[in-house]
Structures are given as structure tokens and as C-alpha cells.
């Protein structure tokens, strides 16, 4: 036993003192204060954090870690979503059967589950995060702007979920999107059935019709079909995650720049 133990710790020491290890981690074991600073400064992922923080602000009791959990779920969704993209084709012909195959023909058939339940969970945690931020009054100066960024992130999270809802191309999907996108028809001025739209007329011709209104831009057609599936796919896999990622970077940056997690003055 003793021998095995010393062999392991010898191997560990040899690894952490090798040139390769040292080129990756620019600090020793994080047991000294000096290294506690270095680990935060030299690691691109950890440098989101400050080196030291007020005790109250990092308590679970205060933040519930909800923002952190939301971010973690975003990462999980990005990763599992990427894996799903290897098998899923966004066409009316294939979409539905590809989804079935994902459960039946692919090893680790829970990738779709992880993605779907993760998405549900993320919606819940964003709400709770916003709720926490409100209840601690953390939107008050100087954090007004970051609250605004947060609201946009909330909307993006919902849109990500909504666009993903169409992709399985089942009954649940198309009817939810049909009903949801029909609301766009009612946009004032921009939708065919919006108030005031009827006033936009050149002679006898309606300037806004079902071929060029707000709903059309969303669907790429007059009704939910092939073009819609493609549009939602592109938004879901590229457009919205990219926007969300950029805004998250701003969001985290501002948490630091606004003086770290809020606390009583």
C-alpha cells in the first residue's frame, strides 16, 4: 500500500514538474496566496473571477449560483447541440425521422434528452436568476445597464428555446410555431392583420400583404413549411447562440466592472 501510494505521488510530482505541465499551468499547487492570485490571472477561463471577493457575495444564500448555473446550462446545450447537428437534417423530408434515429440508431441515445431537458432547465434558471437579482435590488446603480443586458439575454434564451421547438417537425412543433408566428401578423403597420396596416395603401394595392409582412420574414413563406424549418434551424444553431454568447461576455465583464457581485455599501 505504502509503495503504491509513493509511486502515485512520485508520478504526480514528475508530471507537475515537467516542462509540458509548466508550460500549460503557470503556477504551482494552489495552496499559497501567491498561487491563488496567479491561478486567476493566468487562466483565461478563471479570469472571469476576481482574485478576492466579499464573503457575502459568493454565498449560495445570496446568489443561489443561478447566473452561474444558467451559464453552465448554456455550455451544456452548446455542446450537446453540436453533437445533434451531426445527425439532424433540417428538411421536411428528413427532420422527423432523423429525430427518431437519434434515439434508436445512435449510441448514447440520450443526447436529445440532455439537450431538451437542459433547455427547459435553462429557461427556469434564467427566470430565477432574474428574480434573485430583483429581490436583492442588484439592478440599482451602478448596475442598471447590466440589468438591461440581462433582459436581452432572457429574451434570447426564450427565442433559442422557441426556435428549437420547431426542429423535431412533429405536431407539437408546427402548431406551436403556427400559433406563435401568427401573432407577428398582428404587428401594427408591419403585419397584414395589424391595426393601421390597412392605411398603408397605394391606390388599390395594399403595401403590406401576406407575402411581405413581419410574419413572412420569420417564416420565409406564407405558412410554416420547408423555408421556416431552415430559417429556424439557422437561427437556432448559429444566429441566436452567437448573439447570446457575445452578450454573455458583456454581461460577465460588466459584473466585474460594476464592482463585483452587489452588496450593501
Amino acid at each position, binding site marked *: 500500500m505504502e509503495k503504491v501510494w509513493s509511486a502515485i505521488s512520485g508520478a504526480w510530482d514528475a508530471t507537475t514538474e515537467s516542462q509540458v505541465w509548466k508550460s500549460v499551468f503557470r503556477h504551482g499547487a494552489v495552496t499559497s496566496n501567491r498561487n491563488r492570485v496567479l491561478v486567476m490571472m493566468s487562466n483565461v477561463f478563471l479570469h472571469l473571477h476576481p482574485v478576492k471577493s466579499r464573503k457575502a457575495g459568493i454565498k449560495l444564500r445570496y446568489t443561489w449560483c443561478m447566473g452561474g448555473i444558467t451559464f453552465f446550462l448554456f455550455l451544456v446545450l452548446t455542446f450537446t447541440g453540436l453533437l445533434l447537428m451531426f445527425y439532424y437534417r433540417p428538411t421536411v423530408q428528413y427532420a422527423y425521422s432523423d429525430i427518431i434515429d437519434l434515439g434508436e440508431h445512435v449510441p448514447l441515445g440520450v443526447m436529445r434528452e440532455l439537450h431538451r431537458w437542459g433547455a427547459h432547465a435553462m429557461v427556469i434558471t434564467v427566470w430565477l436568476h432574474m428574480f434573485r437579482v430583483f429581490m436583492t435590488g442588484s439592478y440599482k446603480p*451602478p448596475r442598471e445597464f447590466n440589468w438591461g443586458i440581462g433582459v436581452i439575454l432572457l429574451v434570447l434564451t426564450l427565442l433559442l428555446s422557441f426556435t428549437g421547438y420547431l426542429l423535431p417537425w412533429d405536431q407539437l412543433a408546427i402548431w406551436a410555431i403556427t400559433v406563435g408566428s401568427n401573432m407577428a401578423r398582428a404587428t401594427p403597420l408591419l403585419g397584414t392583420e395589424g391595426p393601421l396596416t390597412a392605411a398603408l395603401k397605394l391606390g388599390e394595392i395594399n403595401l403590406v400583404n401576406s407575402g411581405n409582412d413581419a410574419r413572412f420574414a420569420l417564416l420565409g413563406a*406564407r405558412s410554416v413549411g420547408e423555408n421556416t424549418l431552415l430559417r429556424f434551424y439557422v437561427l437556432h444553431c448559429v444566429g441566436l447562440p452567437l448573439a447570446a454568447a457575445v452578450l454573455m461576455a458583456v454581461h460577465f465583464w460588466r459584473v466585474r466592472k460594476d464592482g463585483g457581485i452587489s452588496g450593501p455599501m
Partner: protein
Amino acid sequence: MAQEEKKAATDGADKAAKPAAKKKGKDVSRREFNWLALGWTFFAAATAAGLGAMGRFMFPNVLTEPPSSFKAGLPSDFAIGVVDTRFKEAYQVWIVRNEEGIYALSTICTHLGCTPNWLSAESKFKCPCHGSGFYMSGINFEGPAPRPLERHRIVLAEDGQVLVDKSRIYKQEAGQWSDPESFLTLA
């Protein structure tokens, strides 16, 4: 007041920024201002043009949609007082024959676009999504739908068949159901 102090305490940059902004406003000379205005105008115009072009990009010039008109058979194929649901699946149209003639109703609920069902026992169209109900004529009488179902152009083709053209829409609330082509009068 208390808030001002807090703000200043946590955010030193804020304190510095305010007087600086004031000074800067005064310092901009007339000449500089003209260039600034010109620059921003160009920038705004270019951005607007770019966004406009991008917006236009989302509307394709050609759209492959199923043909919008179809022949539904001879007028005598339709029995009086019956809602014909044969064309619902393929063309999203109900064809209804009454004492005076035939009309073609769109199967798209005027609330949010679900497909209602014809309930012959209750003699009404009932939408499963939010419960809107329509009479056989297409007039709404219950639920959230704000207006009647739409009708399509319906005429007799040269070979005597009933021709339905979905690209033409007649709305009751706009008084368009009196248009002769919205209703095929049969003697």
C-alpha cells in the same frame, strides 16, 4: 442625494466622465462639428442601407408554393347543405353548397391560424386551439376569433367544373362577400 454619493463611491469613472463631457461639448469648434456631422451622417446612411439590404434579403423573389387554383369537380357533385371536407388536406379549403350556390371557405382560423374541424352534429366549425366557433357560412359567433373565415374565388371553368382560386381572398368584414366571384350562384 444619498444615491449620488453611492454612485460616486463605487464608480470613480462616472465622476470623472461628467465634467469631461461638459467641457468637450464646449470645445468642439464649428469646423470640427461640420466634419463630425458629415461623418456620422454617412455612417448612419451606410448602416441604414446595409440593414435595408439585409432585410430585403430575407424576402426571396421566387417562392415555390403549391398551385393556388384547382378544379373541384362538377357543381352537381356537391349536395345542398353539406360541407365538403375532401379538399381540406390538400388545399386547405372547404367547399359548401347551399340553396343558392357554392362557396369556398378557407380552413385557416382567423384567430391564430389553426385548422378548425367541421362538427356536422352541431353544424359549426370549431377551432381546437382556442375554441373559436364559426357557422356554416363562415361567420364567427363564439371564442376569440375576431372576424369570419375567409372565402376564395370560385367560378365555373370552361369545361363546366368548379374552379377554386386560392390566391384571391374575400373578407366578409370588408364587404367583399357580395363580389360575384366569391360565390358561385347556381340557378
